[in-house]
């Protein structure tokens, strides 16, 4: 580490936006490379969405282990400054340096105004992550119903510290479900909602199936899919489920139910099995909508202008950014709200802010962003030292001329 650390002047500063697993990785890696790093997180806790997961796939280990390792590395770093419960309200760019205006926020009451502080840095890593696609947006497909839940809600129910001890129950009867359905691509790959594939929902569903079938011996599950997309080695997850498939407890149905219809005591899912051309209308105790990832910077999630307006002090002369942006940075977003990185700007993007990805890929993406940021800082330092050298040369020449 020392070999790299001497390359940077102590003033080289990096800011990381977002304290999820990706931002945390990026901040720790950057600090270990000798850069003084500031980690800015809007919530009062680190860990982001990963904290709310029941387990990682494919190993099904608890999510705390990865976070604990990172926290241990974080503790050893004196160059890393944490800004928890802090949000970015302003941004300015001058002479290659970024000036971030930060404001401590009260998560309970966003309207409480507090003091502003400024942070000057040389590069910024954006690791703002994602938000779950809201079930309310699928109301016309019948997803707003007590017997319908999203995969993130199920994740919460499955975690050991969930409300029912890791076993989901029907909210009306309080009994464990006997028949459950998963509807894949709920909101994803749909031009009416998000046209991108969220990349993790299929694997997550396979993981959920395994956890549920292990814990509930009477449960039967149907998975309605367009096509199962399990990138990398994750398809092994499905192979691990083949025993349940042979036992008839798990079925994969190539169908897309357009609506969940309340029927008697359950939910019925009218659909066409596209392999057989047969019309299906099975009934279920619980229907899980495998909702996808919407980038946090998505234009759909822009808060109303009034709520986003920071409480600036009277007579504020500093930069005031367009409040329509959910993050006041000069970023290029694609139509879905994913960041299109421009390295020359010194703003680097990582994790689910770039594209939907699973936890392992997010960690790698965070580290990769640090590598790009290091290269950028190094080039700038080279250029600055060359400019400094020529300046000294010129003054020396002028001095000679004078003499």
């Amino acid at each position, binding site marked *: 580490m020392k070999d790299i650390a001497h390359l940077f002047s102590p003033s080289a500063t990096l800011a990381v936006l977002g304290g999820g697993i990706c931002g945390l990785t990026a901040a720790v890696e950057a600090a270990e490379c000798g850069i003084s790093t500031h980690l800015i997180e809007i919530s009062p806790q680190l860990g982001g969405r990963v904290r709310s997961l029941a387990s990682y796939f494919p190993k099904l280990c608890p999510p705390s282990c990865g976070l604990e390792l990172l926290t241990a590395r974080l503790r050893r770093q004196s160059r890393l400054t944490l800004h928890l419960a802090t949000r970015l309200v302003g941004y300015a760019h001058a002479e290659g340096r970024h000036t971030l205006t930060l404001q401590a926020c009260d998560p309970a009451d966003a309207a409480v105004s507090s003091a502003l502080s400024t942070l000057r840095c040389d590069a910024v890593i954006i690791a703002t992550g994602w938000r779950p696609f809201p079930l309310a947006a699928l109301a016309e497909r019948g997803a707003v119903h007590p017997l319908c839940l999203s995969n993130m809600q199920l994740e919460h129910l499955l975690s050991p510290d969930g409300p029912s001890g890791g076993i989901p129950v029907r909210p009306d009867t309080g009994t464990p479900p006997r028949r459950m359905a998963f509807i894949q691509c709920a909101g994803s*790959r749909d031009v009416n909602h998000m046209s991108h594939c969220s990349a993790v929902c299929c694997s997550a569903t396979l993981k959920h199936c395994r956890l549920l079938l292990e814990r509930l011996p009477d449960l039967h599950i149907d998975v309605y899919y367009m096509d199962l997309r399990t990138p990398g080695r994750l398809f092994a997850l499905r192979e691990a489920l083949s025993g349940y498939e042979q036992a008839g407890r798990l079925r994969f149905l190539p169908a*897309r139910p357009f609506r969940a219809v309340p029927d008697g005591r359950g939910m*019925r899912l009218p659909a066409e099995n596209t392999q057989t051309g047969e019309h299906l*209308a099975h*009934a279920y105790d619980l229907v899980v909508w495998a909702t996808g990832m919407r980038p946090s910077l998505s234009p759909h999630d822009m808060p109303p202008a009034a709520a986003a307006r920071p409480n600036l002090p009277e007579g504020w002369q500093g930069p005031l950014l367009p409040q329509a942006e959910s993050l006041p940075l000069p970023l290029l977003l694609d139509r879905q709200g994913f960041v299109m990185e421009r390295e020359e700007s010194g703003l680097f993007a990582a994790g689910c802010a770039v594209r939907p990805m699973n936890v392992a890929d997010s960690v790698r993406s965070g580290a990769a962003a640090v590598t790009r940021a290091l290269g950028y800082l190094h080039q700038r330092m080279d250029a600055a030292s060359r400019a400094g050298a020529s300046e000294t040369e010129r003054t020396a020449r002028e001095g000679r001329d004078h003499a």
Partner: protein
Amino acid sequence: MPVAAEAPSPDHCSSDAARLLQDAGDKALACLQCGMCGVVCPHAASVSPWPRKEMLWLAWGEQDRLHRDPDIWLCRDCGHCSQLCPRGADPAAVMAALRAAACRRLSGGLPSAGRPAWLEAWGLPLLGLAGWVLIWLIRFLQTGTWFPVVRTTPDASGILFAALYPVGLIDAVFLLTALGVLLILGRGAYRQRQAYAPAGKLLRLGPRTSALSDLWAVLRDGLSGQDFARCRLAEVVPETIPAEEKTTDDALRTPPDADHHQRRGHILLTASLLVLAAVSGYVAVGHWAGLLGWSWAFATPLPQLNPIKLVANLAAFTLLLGLWHLWRRRHAEQRHRRLLPQGRRMLLLFFGITLSGLAAQWLRLAGMPAAYAVYTLHLALVWALFAGLPWSPLAHLVYRTFALFHVRRYGRCRPHTFSASSDAKDA
């Protein structure tokens, strides 16, 4: 699968396929085969529903299967599938393009490749107009006057269309055209029959119904608008979005009365056209009976207060009302799906026919010679409607009826149900 006896020339084939894709829209190939469209469709059968398989066949270029598919005619073009398609692949436009292609194929005619678009759109009305102007010129040479004003009519107005175009001439032109159209449509229906016939011998179980009762049931459902009764999006997708959370997007995506306009417009149009056809038949019979010297015969023009005349005028206004409904429906649907230009042209043609007919009548009553010119335009447009019928959306009169009749004969007419009380099997 029967092998085509003679392979079509590659050029013709590719131009057909290209035209089909162009009509269906560039998004048609974005289909992911999720199968949502067939479930949304209120008419789709419970076994191998449409339009998913048609989307697949289109993408694969399975022309032969598409030719043998009666299901394209079972779609009533309500557009629910296009509204809810996750890929924006617009299955309703694909079905409409397939129907237009089927009309071209079943009715035959010149290949459309290389023809300018305006010629295809307005060629027939222009041809009709040219024909009637030619007849006008011939009559001018015969009578020696542009506007043969006749003073001796019982109608004091002094304008008599029969003096310019004798009834016999009109009947000859239109009856010959109608005969040709009937032959072409008959050949098309025969081709449909050949294409749809199942291979081998079919064993029918259960009670037999007579072909006549099946045909009657098809016509009854079609003419009464019963078919469209199921095409209500509100019944497929209930209002579950609270009003305050509704965005403008949602409001745009569910045009409130497109289905209502379609049903109402179709019923009004059909009823008024039937009435007008009956009136025309009655007038023709009266004319020819008069020539044969039968005492009860009558001559045109009928007095304005004659019940037949009153009914005919009423039908003209009903026609306008129906056209207005269909026009409104087109505008509501256009917001979220592609519509073929043929439909708009057909509506414009109908508007032109109705308005020119009414205007000719009013000008005649006012005694203005301009009535002859407007009447000529009216005749030209009516002729264009008749002559172009086998290739226009109106050909569905025969082709959809035949397809519905066919599936009724072969027992493929029972759609699945959405309702909570459905007796669909529960595994």
